[in-house]
C-alpha cells in the first residue's frame, strides 16, 4: 500500500513537472509575440521551436511516450505518422507556393 502511495506521488509529480514546463513554454511563446522581442521572421522561428518542444513535453509527461520498451510500438507509430505528416505538409506548401510564384 505504501509503495502504491509512493507511486501515486511520483506520478503526480511527473504530471506537475509537465504542466509547469508547458506553462513556461506557452508563456515564452506568447511573451515573445506580445513584447515583439525580435524581427517577425525570428519571432515566428522562436514560436515554432517552442511549440515543437512543448509537443515533446506533452508526449513525454502527459501521454507517457518514452524511449523505454513499454511504449516502443506507440513511439514508432507516432514517428511514422510524423514522417507522413511532414512529407504531406511540406510537399503541399512547396508545390503551392511555387505555383503561386509562377502565376505572379
Amino acid at each position, binding site marked *: 500500500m505504501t509503495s502504491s*502511495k509512493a*507511486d501515486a506521488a511520483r506520478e503526480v509529480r511527473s*504530471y506537475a513537472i509537465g504542466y509547469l514546463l508547458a506553462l513556461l513554454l506557452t508563456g515564452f511563446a506568447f511573451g515573445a509575440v506580445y513584447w515583439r522581442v525580435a524581427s517577425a521572421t525570428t519571432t515566428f522561428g522562436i514560436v515554432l521551436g517552442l511549440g515543437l518542444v512543448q509537443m515533446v513535453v506533452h508526449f513525454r509527461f*502527459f501521454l507517457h511516450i518514452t524511449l523505454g520498451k*513499454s511504449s516502443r510500438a506507440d513511439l514508432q507509430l507516432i514517428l511514422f505518422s510524423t514522417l507522413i505528416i511532414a512529407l504531406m*505538409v511540406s510537399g503541399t506548401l512547396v508545390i503551392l507556393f511555387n505555383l503561386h510564384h509562377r502565376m505572379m
Partner: protein
Amino acid sequence: MSATEGAHPGLNIAHPHAQAQEETETALFGFWVFLMSDAVIFALLFATYGVMLPATVGGPTPATVYEIGPAFLETLILLTSSFTFGLASIAMKHDAPCRRILGWMGATLVLGLAFLALEVRDFITMFAQGATPMRSGYLSSFFALVPLHGLHVAAGCLWLVVMMAQVVVFGLDGRVRINTLRLGLFWHFLDIIWIALFSVVYLQGLIR
C-alpha cells in the same frame, strides 16, 4: 513493481497480471492509430491554412481579427484541463474513492466547457467584424481548421459526461477503465493539436 514502470496510469486493470496488461496495451495501440489518422486530417488543414493565408481579397486579415488575450486564456484553460485529467487517471490507477475520480473528471469537464464558451465568443466577435467563412479563402480555411478542433473538444466533453455516468453506474470495472484511458489519450492529444493551433494560427497572425 518495475513492471508498471513507465506504464500508462491506470494500466493495472482489476487483475494486474500480464495478460490483462497486454490486452490493455493492444486496445490503446488501436486508439493511437485513430489519433494519428486524426492528426493527418489536422495537418492537411494546417497546410491548406498556410497556403490560403495571403488570400484575404481585401477583407479582414489575421492581425485585425485575432486577439492575444483570449487566445492565451484559452491555452491556459486547455492546459490546466489536461493536468486535471491526468490527476483523474492517477486517482483511477490507485483505486482512489470514486468521489475523487469524479471530482477531477468534473473539473476537466468544466474547463473544457469554459474553453468552448471562450472560443464561441471569439467567433461571434469575428462574425461581428464581418470575418465570416464566406468572406475570403483565408477565412474559409480558418473556419475549417479552428472550429474542427472545437468540435473535437465538444465531443470530448460529451464523452466525459458519458464516462462519469459509467463510473457512477458500473463502478471501475475493466471496460470503464480502458475507455477512460482512451478518453485520456484523446484529451491530451487535443491539447497537442491546440499547441500547433496557437503557434501557427494565432501567434503567427499576431506577429508584426
